[in-house]
């Protein structure tokens, strides 16, 4: 009996070692949950994005005017009544932007989610199964990789006159997943040969569990940044399409505002309030997503997380955490110690010469 019990005990021990991050203290766990918020860049990005998401939800209700309502106040500069001025037909620009936020956000997030989903399924499967399946899936993603997205969208949108946000999002997702899929495939190829995956296989874990619980957590950073990249691409595509007038010019989004501004020669008329706010909104959303992207890698990588979480302390203490050149920190630089540091720096000079000699 004891002979039989031994292998079981061994397997248990092995699976215990496979589980990543088993026993961490309460302090660590708290820091982990705050990780992304402690990163200043990511925090700024999240705040900006949150503002736009809230506007996407409540925008149509808080818009002070009907964005389509034509009035006699033609090309009014910003005033108390019209915070961002009016168009040449007297429409309120702030209302147009507020109403248009929802379309931009929905298309960006929807396309991002769809494209990320396809790229994960295709890329991870291709990388993990190998062989013929890999060949076929790689061929598929290569084909989609060379399809030029924007011209295709223009053609489809022209063929489907009622093409709304959903159609646009679907087309962007269908053309935008291939790059992420290739990156994920390459990373999966490298991961599936690692010891911890071998150990999982030796423990008898089923394939779906190895893919979703052993490999996927290692891909979080790539998946997340792929999502954000696709979302930025989708927003820019949608705005571009609206700007060149391919999609419906009556459905408001920031591109539609720019389309009307351009076709009414706002630039020539000097009506900067017509196109500058819409441009700034696009730039702000793009910046927010990029800032979040910066934070994600530090957040999901446990090795970087500690350093990332301490970014503020590092800045305050002026420690540069680098691999290969361990920082030396000799306490807070108070006035007296700064003087010490100066004198030691002087004392060091002869040593430097010795080194050179």
């Amino acid at each position, binding site marked *: 009996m004891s002979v039989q019990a031994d292998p079981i005990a061994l397997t248990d021990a092995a699976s215990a070692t496979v589980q990543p991050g088993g026993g961490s203290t309460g302090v660590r766990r708290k820091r982990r949950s705050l990780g992304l918020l402690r990163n200043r860049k990511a925090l700024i990005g999240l705040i900006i994005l949150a503002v736009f998401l809230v506007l996407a939800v409540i925008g149509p209700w808080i818009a002070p005017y009907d964005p389509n309502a034509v009035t006699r106040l033609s090309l009014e500069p910003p005033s108390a009544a019209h915070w961002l001025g009016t168009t040449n037909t007297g429409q309120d620009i702030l209302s147009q932007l507020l109403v248009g936020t929802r379309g931009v956000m929905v298309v960006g997030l929807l396309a991002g989610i769809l494209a990320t989903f396809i790229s994960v399924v295709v890329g991870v499967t291709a990388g993990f199964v190998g062989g013929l399946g890999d060949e076929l899936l790689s061929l598929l993603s290569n084909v989609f990789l060379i399809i030029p997205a924007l011209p295709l969208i223009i053609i489809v949108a022209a063929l489907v006159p009622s093409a709304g946000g959903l159609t646009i999002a679907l087309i962007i997702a269908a053309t935008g997943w291939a790059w992420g899929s290739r990156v994920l495939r390459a990373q999966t190829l490298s991961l599936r040969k690692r010891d911890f995956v071998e150990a999982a296989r030796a423990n008898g874990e089923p394939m779906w569990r190895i893919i979703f619980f052993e490999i996927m957590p290692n891909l979080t950073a790539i998946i997340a940044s792929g999502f954000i990249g696709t979302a930025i691409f989708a927003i820019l595509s949608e705005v571009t399409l609206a700007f060149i007038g391919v999609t419906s010019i009556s459905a408001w989004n920031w591109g539609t505002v720019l389309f009307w501004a351009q076709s009414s020669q706002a630039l020539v008329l000097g009506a900067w309030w017509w196109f500058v706010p819409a441009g700034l909104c696009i730039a702000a959303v793009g910046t927010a997503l990029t800032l979040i992207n910066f934070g994600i890698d530090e957040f999901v990588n446990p090795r970087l997380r500690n350093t990332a979480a301490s970014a503020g302390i590092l800045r305050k203490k002026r420690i540069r955490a680098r691999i290969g050149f361990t920082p030396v*920190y000799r306490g807070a630089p108070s006035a007296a110690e700064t003087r010490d540091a100066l004198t030691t720096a002087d004392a060091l000079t002869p040593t430097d010469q010795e*080194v050179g000699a």
Partner: protein
Amino acid sequence: MTITEPTITRTATTKKPVLEIRDLSVDYGYDDDAVHALKNVNLTLGAGEILGLAGESGCGKSTLAYAATRLLPPPGVITGGEVLFTSSRDGHGGDLLRMSDRELRAQRWRDTAIVFQGSMNSLNPVYKIGKQLMDGIRAHEKMPAHAMRARAADLLSMVGISKDRLDSYPHQLSGGMRQRVMIAMALALEPEVVIMDEPTTALDVVMQRQIVEQIMDLKRDLGFSVIFITHDVSLLLELADRIAIMYAGNIVEDAASSEVYHQPRHPYTAGLLHSFPPLHGPRRELGGIPGSPPDLMALPSGCNFHPRCPFAFDACPKIDPALGPTLYGDAEPHRSVACLLHDPAVGPGRLPDELAARPAG
């Protein structure tokens, strides 16, 4: 075991120091709940000496070696002390902790080289080993290509690998050969200090033997000093001139290896020695050390070893002992120990029998 006679002549302090570690402190983490992995560690490596660093896993052996070379990865940060390198050949050197990046990079490999733990994986699989050997030489010294190739061939034959292996890729060599290539590579620029971090851990005992003998031979021929990190104390007893035993980020005993073997003065050293069977001499009971190394986040008060120490007395939880002379003081001037049993002011004045073996002579 070659150690049969307890000679106390091979001690370090008589030799010129090449690497002096003074009050080195290292934290993992940057804020108030950082782990203090090393606390004011002092260690001196003499010219031509093999210094062994031993202790259980997680006691700071590797941390000490990597901090002293500034190779500790984040979130490691050195919080104090100095690491003085002084060449025994021309006297150049300086404090590694105050060097600029450029000085440090120039100093690395030329003055101090490292053979990593499991370093057979440190070779880049896409380059031939000859190219990898010559790369380092090229970076530090100017010499024509054929001279460099001849030097690389010399290095290989020095570690017992035929020189036609220069054109092999790493995967064409066995693990032991790759390890020897790494040792050859570390010696390429004739460094004065070679740090070996468990270089034989992944190898079988026959290969271990070969590598250890190779290191001894090379050391005799080239005259470098070695810091040898391992948890295999029996290997150290044979290889090292001097052994520093570490526990919870402190050095608890620092003595010649024959003294460590025959006359351990610290209870922890005695425990380590009782964790493996002696190869000859009377059979002794394998005691081991009860418990496990302490959590560095929550160290016991006073002497960090006292909860596991069979000889702990009432002062142990209160006073943290510093590394100092043994109770026999002047009779053994070249060894030090951090234990309150050896403090005449606090301790009971006489040592337990196990720690009281007198030096012969």
